[in-house]
């Protein structure tokens, strides 16, 4: 395991980006940080700038106005940066699938490494998903699988 991966899995700096959500996934992410669930004990911290992020936590459907912003935001992150699609909307659009204003599930826009479905996923589910990400990183090199396959944005 490379030195970089080792450093990454000790503490994961996460940037929380909301696209076009209803907000529940965002609230549950913040709830996961409160003492009852305590996401920080797994070394996950929220950061204020995408430049410092190892992980992008993305919620919400992606609408036609926000799509440009989420792409630019991803470009700003230092690589490797892993993308987690949180909630049904990001994973698959669910009921917003036929909207005139959405662009498809998140993985049509960004390379996604972990999917955490739910409407919204409970804080325990969010933690479980991030723990899986950490386990994935421990098992492989630090290049996100989605980027390994050369998947285009």
């Amino acid at each position, binding site marked *: 395991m490379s030195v970089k991966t080792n450093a990454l899995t000790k503490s994961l700096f996460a*940037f*929380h*980006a*909301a*696209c*076009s*959500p*209803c*907000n*529940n*996934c*965002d*609230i*549950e992410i*913040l*709830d996961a940080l*409160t*003492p*009852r669930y305590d996401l920080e004990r797994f070394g996950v911290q*929220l*950061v*204020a*700038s*995408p430049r410092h992020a190892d992980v992008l936590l993305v919620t*919400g*459907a992606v*609408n036609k*106005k*926000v799509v440009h*912003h989420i792409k*630019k*935001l991803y470009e*700003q992150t230092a690589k490797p940066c892993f993308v987690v699609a949180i909630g049904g909307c990001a994973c698959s659009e669910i*009921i*917003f699938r*036929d*909207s*005139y*204003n*959405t662009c498809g599930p998140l993985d049509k826009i960004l390379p996604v490494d972990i999917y955490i479905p739910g*409407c*919204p996923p*409970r804080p325990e589910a969010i933690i479980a998903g991030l723990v899986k990400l950490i386990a994935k990183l421990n098992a492989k090199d630090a290049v996100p699988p989605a980027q390994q396959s050369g998947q285009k944005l």
Partner: protein
Amino acid sequence: MKNELNNNSKPDATSRCIIPIGPYHPLQEEPEFFRLHVDGEKVVGIDIDLGYNHRGIEKLSEAKHFDQGLFLVERICGICSTSHPLAYANALEDIGGIEIPERARYIRSIIGELERLHSHMLWLGLAGHFIGYNTVWMWAWKYREHILDIFEKISGNRQHYGMIKVGGVRRDIETADIPWIEQNLDEVQRSVDMFRGAVMDDPVIRARTKGIGVLTPEDIRNYGGVGPLARASGVNIDIRRDAPYAAYNLVQWDVITYEGGDIFAKAVVRILEMTESIKIIRQCLQRLKTTPGPIDAAITELPAGEGIGRHEAPRGEVFHYVRTDRTNRPVRHKIRAPSFVNVATNEKSVIGYHIADALIILAAVDPCYCCTERTSVVDCDSGRQLFSGRDMIRLSQERTAQLRKQV
């Protein structure tokens, strides 16, 4: 998206510059784009840029039958999740001339008031953080968990409870569960009492919020403002009392108003409303113990027609207009969330105040961004001296620290 400049730079006192709030700040749930124009440190203008959350729900609703539509509109907004189904069901029942069973009336009010509780608690936490009272944030969100536990007990889910159907509710509340619910309510009541004392008696909070972000009753009227925002300016409107539905005219409670229209008033109204919500819930739970009967009028079809349904959501009046044609899908489903009218009042409330106050003024609307669209205050005409969202919070918290020294 613009790059953030050096976070340590101060604004040039002679220039007009723009300050971005957001986007994607972790503690502001969604990308918001308010463009604040400042002259030195005074806010002189605001542009509001919406559309980052628009998902075309009114159109989607036309392709869903009424029962599916209730799950769709629940997801307009996560925080006021049951408010849209309540208003939509009211509109459909208006079309059908449907009376729902008495048990369903109590359960609807219980869910509606639990939602008001969790929403106000959430806002209290965020507002506390914005002005630098991080303990308030942690405590408010901790006590909020009790409310989410009650939701999970009743509906099976912490958020998006799926409780409303045309003609009634989907799940009953077991009498055996009521003592447990009341115990959790006791915890919430204790926290509300604590916040009331902490907020209303704290001289620093008073200094920080009194006279800030004022909206007059005339401002409220011109924008069609509703909810705690309106009631904090002394405008005495509340759909639960004015056009009662569910159990609101079966139990005893008071509409909370306050004078002044400033941030302090908006906080006080929300805190005192929480006590009223607990009062309503307790009475409804008592009535459920002695009210037998179904929870569902078993409606299978609706006539052609048009109807209006409203609900007093945590942020104010939710309004649904529906037109039907004897099929099981709406011909037209118009949805107006309270934030659509309330967020526009920022055009008034933030002008003339210090930039350090801008954040708390914008937050005091308690915008349900997803209900309306996010607003972002970002405008960089000169590209000089930008403050990030994080800087706005820092400014706001520093302001509180300054006031604490003076008080």
